[in-house]
């Protein structure tokens, strides 16, 4: 590992100032559960490591009936998993966290760091995308809000500018429905080979009718991918098994998996097909439950 200067920041403003000062030579360190691994392998060699984990102002989970959830970027995965209000309002987030790495990693790793790292195999990203989440990016000239749909650009690449910090995640309340995250991995603590997050909203007057749906596929492309054709097939329609199977088929077609140590492209498409089908059916059961 190349040497670096470790610079702890106490406030967001201070961290932004340091980013402006050091430019692309600097890297933000949150929990470092991804970054430290990359640094050990010399994939990333920052000259300045700006540690923001000590900024307690960015460690919070707030819920408001109208506004939804506001989650500070430095909230740990474990806090999200254990939060009573998260379990109550967005069970899929808590459930997803239980599949993310292991307890010690979740105890130290942060949600903002996970998103900013932009690994397409992230468990958090597709789940939040299914819930229609957006992120607040703070820079020297103020804040801007970006939908997660537009935040991920490519493998490990995001819309963050070099002088910006991901400060907050907002999960709007309108996204609430039957949400579920399914993950296929080789071992319990592995990254996903394929994952699928679905948030389904049923018509309150007709529990078979799909009012709205988001289907997001993880680990099968450069970023988490929405199955837009799949979503269009179901929106406003009665959820029959035939239609769900057709949705799973087009989702598998639109996925962009690559062959790697975990399996061939064809194998992963097959898993997408199976997971999308199962996940929508489970989301339907969950959304229809009283």
């Amino acid at each position, binding site marked *: 590992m190349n040497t670096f200067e*470790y610079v702890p920041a106490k406030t967001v403003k201070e961290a932004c100032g340091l980013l402006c000062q050091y430019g692309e030579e600097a890297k933000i360190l949150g929990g470092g559960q991804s970054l430290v691994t990359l640094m050990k392998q010399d994939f990333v060699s920052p000259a300045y490591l700006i*540690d923001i984990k000590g900024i307690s102002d960015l460690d919070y989970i707030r819920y408001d009936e109208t506004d939804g959830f506001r989650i500070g970027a430095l909230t740990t995965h474990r806090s999200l998993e254990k939060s009573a209000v998260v379990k109550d309002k967005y069970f899929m987030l808590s459930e997803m966290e239980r599949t993310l790495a*292991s307890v010690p990693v979740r105890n130290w790793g942060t949600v903002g760091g996970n998103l900013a790292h932009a690994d397409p195999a992230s468990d958090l990203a597709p789940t939040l995308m299914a819930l229609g989440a957006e992120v607040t990016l703070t820079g020297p000239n103020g804040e801007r809000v970006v939908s997660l749909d537009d935040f991920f650009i490519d493998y490990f690449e995001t819309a963050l500018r070099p002088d910006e910090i991901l400060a907050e995640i907002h999960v709007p309340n309108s996204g609430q429905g039957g949400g579920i995250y399914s993950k296929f991995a080789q071992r319990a603590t592995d990254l996903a080979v394929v994952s699928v997050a679905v948030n389904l909203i049923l018509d309150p007057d007709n529990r078979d009718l799909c009012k709205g749906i988001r289907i997001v596929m993880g680990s099968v492309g450069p970023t988490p991918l929405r199955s837009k054709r799949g979503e269009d097939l179901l929106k406003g329609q009665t959820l029959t098994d035939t239609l769900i199977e057709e949705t799973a088929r087009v989702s598998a077609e639109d996925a962009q998996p690559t062959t790697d140590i975990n399996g061939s492209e064809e194998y992963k498409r097959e898993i997408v097909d199976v997971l999308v089908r199962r996940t929508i059916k489970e989301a339907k059961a969950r959304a229809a439950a009283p």
Partner: protein
Amino acid sequence: MQTLSLTINGETVESLIDPRTTLQKFLHDTLGLTGTKEGCGSGLCGCCTVMVDGKAVKSCLIFALQVRGKSVQTIEGLAQEDTLDPVQHAFIENGAIQCGYCSAGMIMSSKALLEENPNPSEKEVRHALSGNLCRCTGYHKIVKAVLSVSGQV
């Protein structure tokens, strides 16, 4: 070199370290607390598990400077004088130690679980230990050991 001050097993430690030093290297190489071992070095095997402010973490994926001012507990801090911690005792009683390489991490993860949830189910024990690999594959006895101290920690 940068200054680090923290508490380890109840004692204040101050040191001048290279910022690249991970918490695991600091404990193992600098302080000679060799219970905290590096296995994979990438957060997968759990051999390096210690507690920071009472929570289990992987010390190979944390720079030592990140825990400045915090309280670290390692396997060396569990026994009270000549009396082993009940979890350590249970591992011995149940034959949950084979080669011993994973044991410190397994015990620290178990200890963190039991402090949070004193009466875990077998499923909860297995979930809490899923980030700790045993290369001898002696999982069954490890789970048995943890369950045997349920309610005693």
